[in-house]
């Protein structure tokens, strides 16, 4: 407020950025890519290393490939954060769906395996939705709890199928590791998915209900919103997205483990937050979260390239997340 009198252009610029939060994020992304290019000349622009091409499709493809599952899980966080919630079960749900799919493919074939994997996600979503929507448990606690339970179930399930062996469905491997024109095949799933989420948030009644509930739940309820139905649908959707992301991730990693996608949970929250989604609800954008996921991946590459000890890498990762969000809060003046 005091800045109004000191530096009006700066304030106007800040307001412009607040209305278009994606711009500073994109600037930051390209800045990071530039730093990366300085650190290791030729990684992004191969002609400097004496090879053909202006931009390395291999590098960009890799970047996008590994950002896809993260961005999908970030979508879960963006959607739930719109209603001032959070979904901490997505990592486990993705792992469960990947593990179930890989083990059942070897026994019953691919189609039933994929369907069962997705319905496992659906089930967790229904439980989350009932807990948050009907019983009104805090989403943090509810999804933390279901995540714990699902982990336990997965461990028990693993003992049952321990002899069955695993099989990665061919089409998932194609989606996960294949490339078309240099770009990862995962985009065949991700682009329609991203368009769907953007459409859902911007142009549908459901999206507007999410914003309304997050901005002022009481007002939304008084205007006739049946909040529990929205919450139920929201958490089911979130878990389904997580299950789908788990399947994609399975094709990408081509290995099963009991904690496959769990390390993606906290980065997914970070991607959503960096992308300008408020954890207090009512404000958020999926486009921002996608850029957030890309930023995190570039950051990952950068820290790996610097060949720092693992401890420094982890610490820097945290510090940069904090710095980006703090800067964002400063520039846009929102929380």
């Amino acid at each position: 407020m005091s800045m109004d009198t000191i530096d009006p252009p700066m304030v106007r610029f800040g307001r412009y950025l607040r209305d278009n939060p994606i711009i500073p994020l994109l600037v930051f992304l390209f800045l990071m890519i530039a730093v990366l290019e300085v650190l290791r000349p030729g990684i992004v622009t191969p002609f400097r290393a004496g090879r053909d091409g202006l931009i390395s499709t291999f590098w960009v493809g890799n970047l996008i490939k590994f950002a896809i599952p993260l961005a999908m899980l970030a979508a879960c966080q963006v959607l739930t954060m719109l209603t001032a919630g959070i979904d901490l079960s997505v990592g486990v749900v993705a792992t469960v769906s990947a593990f179930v799919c890989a083990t059942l493919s070897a026994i019953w074939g691919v189609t039933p395996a994929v369907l069962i994997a997705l319905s496992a996600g659906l089930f967790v979503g229904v439980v989350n939705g009932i807990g948050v929507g009907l019983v009104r448990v805090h989403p943090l606690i509810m999804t933390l709890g279901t995540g714990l339970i699902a982990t336990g179930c997965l461990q028990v399930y693993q003992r049952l199928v321990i002899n069955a062996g695993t099989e990665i469905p061919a089409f998932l491997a194609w989606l996960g590791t294949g490339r078309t024109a240099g770009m990862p095949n995962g985009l065949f799933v991700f682009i329609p998915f991203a368009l769907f989420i953007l459409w859902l948030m911007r142009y549908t009644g459901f999206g507007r209900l999410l914003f309304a509930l997050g901005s002022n739940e009481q007002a939304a309820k008084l205007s006739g919103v049946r909040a529990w139905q929205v919450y139920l649908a929201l958490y089911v959707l979130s878990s389904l997205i997580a299950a789908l992301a788990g399947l994609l991730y399975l094709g990408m990693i081509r290995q099963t483990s009991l904690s496959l996608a769990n390390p993606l949970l906290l980065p997914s929250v970070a991607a959503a937050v960096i992308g300008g989604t408020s954890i207090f609800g009512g404000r958020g954008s999926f486009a921002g979260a996608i850029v957030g996921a890309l930023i995190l991946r570039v950051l990952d590459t950068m820290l790996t390239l610097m060949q720092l000890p693992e401890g420094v890498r982890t610490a820097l990762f945290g510090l940069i997340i904090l710095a980006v969000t703090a800067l964002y809060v400063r520039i846009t003046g929102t929380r």
Partner: protein
Amino acid sequence: MSGAIRKHAWVMGLAVLLVVLLTITKLIQPTFGASGLESIARAALPFAFATAGMAIVVIVGGIDLSVASMMAVCAVTAAVLMERMAGAPALFIVLGVGLLMGLINGLLIVVTRVPDIVVTLAMLFVWEGVALLILETPGGATADWLEQAIRGHFLFDGLPKALLVIALGIAVVWLPIRRSKLGLSIYATGSDELAAFRSGVSVGRTKIAAYALCGLFCAMGGLSLAALTGIGEPVPGPYLMASVAAVVLGGVVLGGGKGGLLGPIIAVFVLRIIRTILTLLAVDPNVTTIIEGTIMVLVVMLGTAASLKGARR
């Protein structure tokens, strides 16, 4: 007034539950006695301290996702220091390190105005990295007296030293603060930040103090972790989830302002004893995880439903 009654009712209910569970344990395993109690208390040590720290932060209206990482930093610091120097100074250095980490968390939250969940999420990575820098692989050693301090019984069988350590650690730090102006400020800030600010509470300083206290308790947790294992382990344990569960089960409301430290500590023991009972029943440890999670969710659901009947929303 009715709020105070309900709060005490919750803690008393938990205490009754604890006694019932202890009785069940005794029924299942007639030999269960002083030594069984001692091992439960010992296993509960790091959980109890993590929960105490988390409870204070939740009361002030925040949440600290970095507790497990801070405990890891303190555990490795203790293991590295105690390999080189004798007892007491190392102990105080570790406590100081914990306090400092909490202080940094609080300062960052207040200064950057970034939501606490995000700051502590980022700091979770930072502290994890610091722990790895101090000690790359599990190692170091702890002093014998530290291990002795939590092993066995005090004065007579049936009063585990570990229980005494928990009670002392929390009483020495928390009771004087709770009775002081800072304690009142913590509850006021948690109840309604704006109202507290307008009544002259320095909200920022209160928050920083609460996070610093959380760091101090994490240092105690890290010390007990090092004492339990005899080495320093740089990878954070499962204390984040467990402490949030115990805090909520203990009657502290997420959002702040309500609850105490006694409830969460009893809740820690309830959760540990449930685990013991399931082990005694020879239940698959993996099924135990499922049952624990289900109990946690059900209890929280019941608690929320009960408080909804009051006048929360």
